[in-house]
Structure formats: structure tokens, C-alpha cells
């Protein structure tokens, strides 16, 4: 009997935890709220596993009952969890917790936070905790505390700090003139930092949009720019690349779930092969009969694009298919409090530059590239010199299509994958190639980034639609000045 009691006593923490969980799951939402608020103000290290479980939507591992949470509870839970994580031994965990608390801490937690702040040893965590406290101390009764808090807030670039300071400066809120002046200085400081972050963000968006345009247009720079085929099916090559990514993702999930994290890498060669294969097939069957009749390639490739779209629609359905970001492409890099650079976009910018470099090397440093350039400049002469023009055409078209396929992989990571994917990029792609100067890789590069950045600079000012219209108008005007694009070949060209 005694032993039993002793065992029970030993199990008590576990038991309380279990019963707390039981209580929580059966409680009404309002009770759940007060429970969480209470726990947040007085954290107990033993409760951490329970909170972890709750956060994952269950009360214990192996318990199949699903916890129904709503956003309010989820928010409170995150706050409570962070509060408990401050008790952790690992500084990194404490830091993350402090950062969470900067957003969500409640006045009821001040006492606890004060205690933790006093004993916190790690400098970074201490600084973060200081900010948490500063947020709460704006309402402190002593002007000196408020003054310190206001000064501290001025050091951050946190958008919330701006709101808090502005609220403090509302007429009648802060009465102490010292604090008021300090708050004004701090507010100006915060605003400056925020503006910096915003501008950086806009520049990044522009770069990112530019990289997407570049990936979309690069294949076209070869099929249209070099071969002179007005390839209206170019968008569908992008689309095929994206669908290849989808298929790879599904196959890997089914047959090699361990490698799912790296499916985009595996999808790259597959997408290239699929698009290049389809491209070469088209070149051999249709386009080869149409060289030198550019406007007719437009019609034939338009027909091809209709067929490809409908084929994909019948195969995969009209709905979009799901292409998930792997973990390493999800989320973003927090550079400034108001600037997050999504990993997927960072990777795509890098990837776009990599593909440009690859294409440039292929065209300028290989035999194939030499042949392609020879054929595109003077087909007859190249044939006379023993260049197998037919094969070169096929390979060049395959290369352009394959690069479009690579673009498709990248596009699948940020947008829709559906049968119409290609249609939304085709006009932009043509504009990039024409603006850059047909046949000029460097031109396409500059045009893509230029268009991307111009678009993103205009968008916040006049909205997405007017921005786009203005850009189109500017392009039309620009082409007036430089009818051959940014990078035109000059000289004695007889037409």
C-alpha cells in the first residue's frame, strides 16, 4: 500500500500533466483560454511536453484524439509555449522564445519576465528579453522605466515598435515631456530603419521577379532569338517542365520517400529531358519545314500549344496539381525585422544566373555552340562548311526547350502548376527577348532584371495593373528609339 502510494507520488508530475491534458481537451474554449493565460504567467518546466503536444494538435504522443484548435487558442498556445521555453537550458531555444514573446507577451507575464531577465546570462537572449520587457513597460507607471523602454525601442527596426510608439504619442497618452521627446526621437529612428527595410524589400522583389522573367524567357531567347522561330509553344515547354517536376515529386513520394527533400534537384534533369525531347520532336516534325517563314511558325506553334495544353488537361485534369516546396525551400531568411527573403526566391535568383552562365558557356565554349551560331548567322554557308544544319537545328531547338523546362521547375516552386501555366508567361517572355535585342543573351539578362525591378518599383506607387500598363507603354516607346532592342548588332546590314 505504501509502495503504491510512493509510486503514485513519484508519478504525480506525470499524472498532473496527464490530467491537465485531459482537462484541457474537454474544457470549453473560454476555459482553455484562461488555462493557457494562467500557464503563461506562471510557467512550469514540467508542462513543456504537454504544451509541445498541444501545439501539434494532440494531448499526448500516441493519443489519437484530435485537438480542435482555433487561431486564438493557437496564438495563446504559442505564447504560453514560448513562456515555458524561456526555462530551457539551451540558449537558442530561449532566444527563439524571446523573439516570439516580442510579438505576443501579455502584461500578466511581466513579473515572470522580469525574473528571467534578471538571471539571464546569454547576452543575445538578454537583449531580446529586454525588448520584450520594453514593449510591456511602455505602460509602466514610473516615467524612468518608460523612458528606458522608449529608448530601447528606438534601437529596433521592428514594425510593431512603430505602432507602439505612435500609440504612446497620441495626444493625452504620454504626459511626461522627457519620455515624449525620447519617443519622438525613437519613432523617427524606427521609421528610418523600416524605410530602409522596405526599399531593400522592393529591390529584392524586383530581382526576384526579374529572375523569374529571365528563366521564362531564356529558352525563348534561343528558339526565337537564335533560330528565329516565333515559338508560341514556348510557354508550354515551361508548363511541361513544371509538370515533370510534379511527376517526379509524386514518384519519389511513392517509391523513395527518403529522398523527397531533394526532389527538385532530381526534377531538373528530368524536366530538361522532357521539354528538350518534346522540343526536338516538334522541330523534326513541324518546325523544320518552316525555317525562314517566321510568321508562319507563329501559327503552327500556336496550334502546337493548343494541342499540348489540352493533352495535359486530359492527362492530369484541368485543375492545378500540387507541387510542394521542400523544407529547404520553405520559409525565409529574416534579414531585418520587416524583411524576410524567402528561400525559394533566393534559390531561384541563383538558379537563373546559373542557367544563364550555363547557356552562355554552351553557346560560346562548345562545338555545338559554334555550330548553332554559324547556322543562325548563315545557314547556307554553314551547310557548305559541313555543319549538319538539320542536326544543329534540332539540338538548338531542344536546348531552348530544355532550358524552358528548367524554368518550369523553378516556376513550379512559386506559382500554379496547371495546364495554362505557360500562357501567362508567353507575352512577358517575348517582351524580354525583344527588349533585350533578339539573339542577345546579355540583352535578355538586362531586360529581364530591368523589367522586374521597374515593375516592382511602380507597383506600390500606382498598383499592379497601371504599373504593368505603364511598363508596356514604356517598352513601346523604347522600341521606337532602339528598334533592335538594347543590344543590337550594328553595322552594314542589308535587309
Amino acid at each position, binding site marked *: 500500500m505504501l509502495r503504491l502510494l510512493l509510486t503514485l507520488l513519484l508519478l504525480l508530475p506525470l499524472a498532473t500533466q496527464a490530467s491537465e491534458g485531459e482537462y484541457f481537451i474537454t474544457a470549453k474554449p473560454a476555459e482553455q483560454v484562461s488555462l493557457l493565460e494562467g500557464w503563461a504567467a506562471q510557467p512550469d518546466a514540467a508542462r513543456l511536453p504537454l504544451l509541445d503536444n498541444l501545439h501539434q494538435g494532440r494531448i499526448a504522443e500516441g493519443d489519437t484524439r484530435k485537438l480542435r484548435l482555433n487561431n486564438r487558442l493557437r496564438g495563446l498556445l504559442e505564447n504560453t509555449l514560448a513562456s515555458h521555453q524561456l526555462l530551457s537550458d539551451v540558449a537558442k531555444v530561449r532566444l527563439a522564445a524571446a523573439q516570439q514573446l516580442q510579438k505576443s507577451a501579455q502584461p500578466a507575464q511581466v513579473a515572470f519576465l522580469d525574473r528571467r531577465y534578471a538571471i539571464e546570462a546569454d547576452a543575445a537572449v538578454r537583449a531580446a528579453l529586454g525588448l520584450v520587457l520594453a514593449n510591456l513597460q511602455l505602460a509602466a507607471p514610473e516615467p524612468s522605466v518608460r523612458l528606458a523602454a522608449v529608448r530601447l525601442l528606438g534601437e529596433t527596426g521592428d514594425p510593431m515598435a512603430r505602432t507602439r510608439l505612435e500609440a504612446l504619442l497620441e495626444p493625452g497618452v504620454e504626459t511626461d515631456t522627457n519620455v515624449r521627446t525620447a519617443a519622438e526621437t525613437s519613432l523617427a529612428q524606427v521609421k528610418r530603419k523600416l524605410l530602409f527595410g522596405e526599399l531593400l524589400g522592393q529591390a529584392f522583389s524586383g530581382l526576384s521577379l526579374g529572375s523569374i522573367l529571365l528563366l521564362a524567357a531564356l529558352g525563348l531567347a534561343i528558339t526565337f532569338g537564335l533560330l528565329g522561330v516565333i515559338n508560341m509553344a514556348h510557354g508550354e515547354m515551361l508548363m511541361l517542365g513544371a509538370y515533370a517536376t510534379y511527376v517526379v515529386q509524386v514518384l519519389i513520394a511513392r517509391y523513395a520517400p527518403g529522398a523527397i527533400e531533394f526532389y527538385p534537384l532530381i526534377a531538373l534533369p528530368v524536366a530538361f529531358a522532357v521539354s528538350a525531347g518534346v522540343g526536338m520532336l516538334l522541330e523534326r516534325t513541324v518546325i523544320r519545314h518552316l525555317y525562314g517563314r517566321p510568321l508562319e511558325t507563329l501559327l503552327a506553334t500556336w496550334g502546337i500549344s493548343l494541342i499540348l495544353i489540352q493533352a495535359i488537361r486530359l492527362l492530369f485534369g484541368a485543375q492545378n496539381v500540387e507541387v510542394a516546396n521542400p523544407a529547404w525551400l520553405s520559409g525565409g531568411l529574416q534579414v531585418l525585422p520587416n524583411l524576410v527573403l524567402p528561400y525559394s526566391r533566393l534559390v531561384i535568383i541563383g538558379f537563373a544566373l546559373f542557367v544563364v552562365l550555363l547557356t552562355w558557356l554552351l553557346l560560346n565554349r562548345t562545338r555545338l555552340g559554334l555550330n548553332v551560331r554559324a547556322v543562325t548567322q548563315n545557314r547556307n554557308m554553314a551547310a557548305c562548311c559541313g555543319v549538319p544544319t538539320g542536326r544543329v537545328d534540332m539540338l538548338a531547338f531542344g536546348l531552348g526547350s530544355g532550358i524552358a523546362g528548367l524554368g518550369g521547375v523553378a516556376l513550379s516552386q512559386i506559382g500554379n502548376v496547371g495546364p495554362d501555366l505557360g500562357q501567362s508567361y508567353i507575352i512577358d517572355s517575348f517582351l524580354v527577348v525583344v527588349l533585350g535585342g533578339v539573339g542577345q543573351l546579355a540583352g535578355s539578362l538586362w531586360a529581364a532584371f530591368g523589367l522586374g525591378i521597374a515593375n516592382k518599383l511602380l507597383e506600390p506607387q500606382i498598383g499592379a495593373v497601371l504599373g504593368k500598363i505603364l511598363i508596356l507603354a514604356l517598352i513601346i516607346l523604347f522600341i521606337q528609339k532602339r528598334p533592335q532592342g538594347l543590344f543590337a548588332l*550594328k*553595322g*552594314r546590314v542589308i535587309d
Partner: protein
Amino acid sequence: MRAIPLPPAHPEFMLEPVLDAGSGRDAIGLGQARSQGLDARHGTVLTLEDISVSFDGFKALNALNLYIGVGELRCIIGPNGAGKTTLMDVITGKTRPTTGKAWFGDTLDLTRMSEVQIAQAGIGRKFQKPTVFEALSVFENLELAQKADKSVLASLIARLSGEQRDRIDEVLQTIRLSASAQRPAGLLSHGQKQFLEIGMLLMQDPQLLLLDEPVAGMTDAETEFTAELFKGLAGKHSLMVVEHDMGFVGSIADHVTVLHQGSVLAEGSLEQVQADDRVIEVYLGR
């Protein structure tokens, strides 16, 4: 590079050159030498001074000076890349000189005029590669070239008068294409296209004719005929002929200019030029 001559479609016609240049010239009735707009009282129809053209650093023409007198027949020769075609481009307004002055007559500044204005002022040009309107018939080609009001409105309501029709027939006879008048120009042989283009120039009736390799692809007989034709034109018209064929040059020109690397190397009669050491070195001597 010389164009490869195409086999003539009607060899029998080619074999019968018209040697009577005088009648040919009378037949095409080039009576008036000047239009009202052109003032060439000082005797030069074309004045080029210090003309330079550069493409991305490459100087196609370098401080070139050239004067062509009224009624003169000037031949321009020079090795490949000497700037002959660029020179024509500058005169016709297709290329703008980087520096220099170009005057047509005494009053018209060619560097300020558009290609169309230059053509309307009275400079006609024949391209190196014969360029005719291939989808139109020979007759229609000549009709379009004919000197007339060339505005949009005029062409909407234009009707051929009997007089104009007669002119076209005359030129057709001169260039010996009467039989092919209704054929599409695209079906003509290379030599016939050359003649058609010359015929179009005749219809245009310019003060100054620029002819870029006019006898390329012609048989000897045709060349001879062309030479006679040009000689007949000279005097009342000014001609500037770019040609590689020395025989042809010798048969028509009294005055020859040699271009080299974008500037004038030598000028004078063919004999004088051929005797010039520098010319021999860069061009003739090989």
C-alpha cells in the same frame, strides 16, 4: 564579292545588243536634266566633303571628299571593304555620316534629308543585288517608279494617262522587256532584273543616278549594251557607277575615283589611275 550570274531566260534576246546608243537615248526621251528644286549653277551636282562614317569604332569612310559635276559619268572602283556601298548609303540617306558635309546641287543638304526626300529630290539608286518588286508585273514595276505625285492620296486615285502608258512602253522597249511586260518580276532572270531596275531608274528620271555593280550577272553583249545606255545618259544626267568589271569601266568612264579604306586614293582617267603606284599596290597590282 560578285553575284553569281544566273542563266538568262531568253538567250536569243541577249545575243542581239543594240549598238545604236543615240537612238536608245532619244527613245527614252531624257529631255529635261533638272527639276525645279535642284540648283546646280556651280556645276557640281554632288559635293561630299570630309565625310566620315564609323560603326562601333570601325571607320567605313574616313574624311572622304568627292565632287561630281553636272552631266558627268563617274566610276568608283576600289577593293572590297573600301567603303563603296557605304558611300552610296550616305548619299541616299540610308546611313548618316558621323561628320562631314553632303550637298546635292548647291542648296540641298543631304545629311538633313530623309531617304524619301532625297529620292524625290532627284537621286536614284540601283542596288548591288537587283531589287525589284517581285510580286508585281514588269509593267507595274515601271509604273510605280514613274515620275509622278507619289503621295498616298494621289496613288489612291491615280489613273494612267495615255502619255504615261506610252512612256512605260518606250522604256520597256529600251530595256527589251516588252514581251515580258505582264510577267511577275520575280520570274525574270538575274540579268533581266538588272535591266528592269535600270528601267525603273529611267522612269524615275533622276538628276543623279547611283549604280551599284550594274552589270553583275550580265552577258558580254548585255554589258556592252548597258555601257552604251549609260554613255547616252551622261551629259544630261550625272551618273556614279560602282563597278569591279574593269572592261566595263574602261568602256564608259572618262573619270575614275579609287577608294581605299574609306578615303579617296586616286582620281583621274582610267589610264592615269591604273598607272598610279599606290593604286597598283592596293588594288590592281595584287
